[in-house]
């Protein structure tokens, strides 16, 4: 039941905050914040409760929904879901804080949409019924569309459209694939069900499984986004309000990565392996191309948006490397990218509130005026370029170690991406905080609210960089749940891969 409450709390918060906004906007903000913090407390409590986290599935809850089709309200939580949920509510609460002053117009409806997006995301991370998964996948869309389309910047409507149509098209292909799987399973066993666990070991022809896997994969790489499908991202990220950008970059992209880990790899292990070189190639293309484009952007938010394309390339690379190290790196990357990019978008928003521009060419020389903000930005820029000691380094290192065992040439190319990351990241610092300034700015530095949002981010990114053990330990519990299907097939179909399944000498795993 607790899983249902986790999903229902933001829904209730959404309705309440909309209702009270007519009377008091401040109260509406507090309600939104409180509901997300409550959820954050719940999931953190679960985490602390687990301690070692010995079991595979922490919680499991099921109720019939549309029995005619074998659709159930099936929610379950393992280590991966838990980690993602903590991130979700953490960034969610921060995005309420970040819009405290930015959103004054129709704040009630804004918070309604914000909380509804978070509901959808939480649902995606928790559901174990494929129909329900598609349902939540779509539920994320409409409120996000409104967030971009109503409270965004100049070209908001165009961006909102593009975002909506891209993701919806991917989603519909996924629906076809889900239905294909549903009928294949029914043809084999006579049982019509959308239950993830029942569908896991569906035997099917190789070619069919390849088609179905592609259906899922397209939806996820559109969301991720991987290179040919990434064009919605810079527009959406740039035009969205700060909170929208934080949620998009920090959480929405992660649903794509999560989908690959949770659905594509376990459901279609063989087909995924066939496709792995191409997926890794797409990932590397994203790393290099995204990085190159990021360097060329004149707009702060657009630059950060393209860095997401680059960083998400690592996720794709690692996810299809098929080994434990890379998998841990992928999840770390999901978390650290959420935090570092979320923070950079927040900083862009904070800066925009002060100087009302996102043009890098109109900034410069801000360090003397805004030393505190400069320091914080420096930390996240360093995180973004993968400086050891900060979370992103661990993530990218693990991914590269993992993918080295799977595909060496591509790993070498991906490593070049780190150099590009250094170049574009340092460009942010140079353009914004160093160099000559044309005019004298007299600007207020970070205020209390901004410190409250940025300080936890700084602490978390450093914590993840120097002591990632708790997260990795929690992910270990998810290994059983994710790899049960994968491992056996590895042995069966690619004997030489069994060696890769062993944790390598580089592994940072604690419990081996």
């Amino acid at each position, binding site marked *: 039941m607790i899983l249902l409450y986790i999903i229902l709390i933001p829904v209730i918060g959404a309705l309440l905050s909309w209702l009270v906004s007519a009377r008091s906007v401040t109260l509406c903000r507090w309600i939104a914040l409180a509901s997300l913090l409550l959820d954050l407390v719940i999931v953190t409590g679960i985490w602390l409760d687990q301690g070692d986290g010995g079991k595979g599935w922490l919680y499991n809850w099921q109720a019939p929904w549309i029995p*005619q089709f074998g659709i159930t309200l099936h929610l379950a939580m393992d280590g991966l879901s838990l980690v993602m949920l903590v991130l979700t509510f953490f960034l969610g609460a921060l995005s309420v804080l970040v819009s405290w002053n930015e959103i004054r117009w129709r704040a009630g409806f804004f918070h309604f949409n914000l909380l509804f997006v978070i509901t959808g995301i939480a649902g995606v991370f928790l559901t174990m019924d494929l129909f329900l998964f598609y349902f939540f996948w779509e539920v994320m869309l409409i409120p996000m569309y409104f967030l971009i389309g109503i409270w965004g910047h100049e070209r908001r409507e165009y961006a909102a459209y593009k975002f909506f*149509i891209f993701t919806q098209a991917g989603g519909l*292909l996924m629906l076809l694939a889900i239905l294909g799987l549903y009928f294949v399973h029914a043809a084999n066993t006579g049982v019509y069900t959308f239950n993830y666990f029942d569908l896991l070991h569906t035997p099917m022809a190789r070619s069919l499984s390849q088609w179905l896997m592609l259906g899922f994969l397209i939806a996820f790489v559109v969301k991720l986004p991987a290179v040919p499908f990434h064009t919605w991202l810079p527009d959406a990220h740039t035009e969205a309000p700060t909170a929208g950008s934080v949620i998009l970059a920090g959480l929405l992209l992660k649903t794509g990565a999560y989908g690959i880990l949770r659905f594509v790899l376990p459901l279609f292990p063989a087909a995924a392996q066939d496709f792995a070189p191409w997926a890794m190639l797409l990932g590397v293309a994203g790393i290099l191309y995204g990085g190159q484009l990021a360097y060329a952007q004149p707009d702060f938010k657009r630059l950060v948006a393209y860095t997401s394309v680059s960083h998400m390339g690592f996720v794709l690379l690692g996810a299809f490397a098929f080994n434990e190290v890379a998998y841990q790196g992928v999840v770390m990357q999901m978390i650290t990218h959420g935090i570092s990019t979320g923070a950079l978008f927040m900083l862009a928003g904070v800066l925009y509130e002060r100087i009302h521009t996102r043009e890098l060419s109109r900034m410069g020389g801000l360090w003397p005026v805004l030393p505190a903000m400069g320091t914080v930005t420096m930390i996240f820029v360093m995180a973004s370029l993968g400086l050891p000691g900060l979370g992103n380094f661990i993530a990218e290192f693990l991914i590269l170690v993992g993918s080295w065992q799977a595909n060496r040439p591509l790993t070498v190319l991906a490593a070049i991406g780190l150099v590009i990351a250094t170049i574009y990241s340092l460009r942010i610092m140079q353009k914004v905080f160093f160099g000559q300034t044309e005019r004298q700015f007299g600007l207020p530095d970070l205020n209390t609210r901004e410190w409250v949002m940025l300080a936890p981010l700084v602490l978390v990114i450093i914590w993840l960089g120097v002591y990632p053990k708790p997260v990795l330990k929690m992910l270990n519990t998810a290994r059983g749940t994710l790899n049960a299907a994968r491992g056996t097939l590895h042995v069966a179909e690619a004997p030489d891969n069994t060696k890769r399944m062993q944790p390598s000498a580089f592994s940072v795993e604690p419990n081996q």
Partner: protein
Amino acid sequence: MTFDDLLSLGPLFNICGGAVIAMLLVAIWRNHRLVYYFTLLVYILALASVVPVAKLLPHIIAPLVVVDMFALFNSGAIVGSGLIIVLLSYNYFEEREERKEEYYLLLLLATAGALVLVISRHFMSLFLGLEMLSISLYGLIAYLRARQRSDEAGIKYLILAALSSAFLLFGMALVYGFTGHMDFPGIGAYLQQAGSVPLPVVAGFGLMLIGIGFKLGIVPFHMWAPDIYEGAPLPVAAFVATISKGGVLVVLIRFFQDVNGTQYTMLWWILAITAVASMFVGNWLALTQQNIKRMLAYSSIAHLGYLLVAFLAGKQSGLEAIAFYLVAYFPTSIGAFGVLIVMSSSVQDAETAEDYRGLFWRYPWVALAFTVMLLSLAGIPLTAGFIGKFYIVLAGADGNHWFLLLMLVINSVIGLYYYIRIVAMMFRTTETPQRTFIKPALPLAGNITLGLVVLLLVGLGVYPSAMMQLIQQMMTLIR
């Protein structure tokens, strides 16, 4: 005729009797409110009379009609939709200067026509129902005579409907001439026996398909739809979009089943091509429409294409999908027209997208209702339209028609664009509209009806299993 016969035709008799009494009422005392309440009562009684029929099923009154679960379910859907249309009609006509009372009379007659269609198993009853429907619609479409486009729409529909009836009749004559049967099962039995289909019968089927295609408004017989929707009074447009098309679709399904249509791959391919063409043409032409009525017209062409996909699946699940889709589509479509009705002033209908600019900030509840309808048309979760579309995709996947499904998916994405465009328009923030035909105060009855429709749509979207259970019980055709 036995008592059971009478009872099994309960909904039809209620509506027909209501039409007669309504006519007398108008003759004795012309009063809009009186006729309105009377019509409402008739629809409610007709809806109630659906229930006792269930015990008698299946009931054949040879040779003309058959009342089975399938027919009864669709009768219920038709009467229910009629009820919503009547509820929305009062304010719309009250504000207009023409004589209002005959509208209800014609509406009752048209509904009766649709009810005859869903129970017909014979060419005679088919044609009778179709003509009752069409002739009432001639009057209904041109009802607001003083409007510019009303006459145009009326004449257009008159000519095209008459033409399509002629095609249909000619087709029927050919089929009858060579098979010697006018009842569907008889034709089916004859074809079964003959082994092959004689050429004139093929031609007859083709001509009939043209006639039916016109009524359904599927490509390439769709040209009339936008002009009719634009010129007709809004409640009538809602009627044409839902009940009229639904009734014809039901008769098509029954005919197809009785003559074992699934055996003829040729026929299947023709319908498949029609379905794909309807989806593409409908959605494509809707893309650039500024006029919401025309957009809804084109989108209804596309929706017929979706329905044909389920129809072509040919399985039991396809039948259920059609039933569910109709149950979802009827209120959605009527609701969308209902929003237009509620927002229209007596001067002109609020029909351009521009009229709805920033509506959310002025009339949040109406705008939300409209958003729900549009999202339901687009097939977004939490609405009935999503479950309906899902059901269709499920049926198509069941029948292994992946190509048709791919087309459906592509079209859903195209469709999304123009529905979302209107939603975006309602949530626009900056400018206020230049000119608007939106009136300052909204009618209460219309708002309540819209609220109920929204509840129905969201209810079906969140908890569809009760309706599905009903449909699974009801979707049994008999021969």
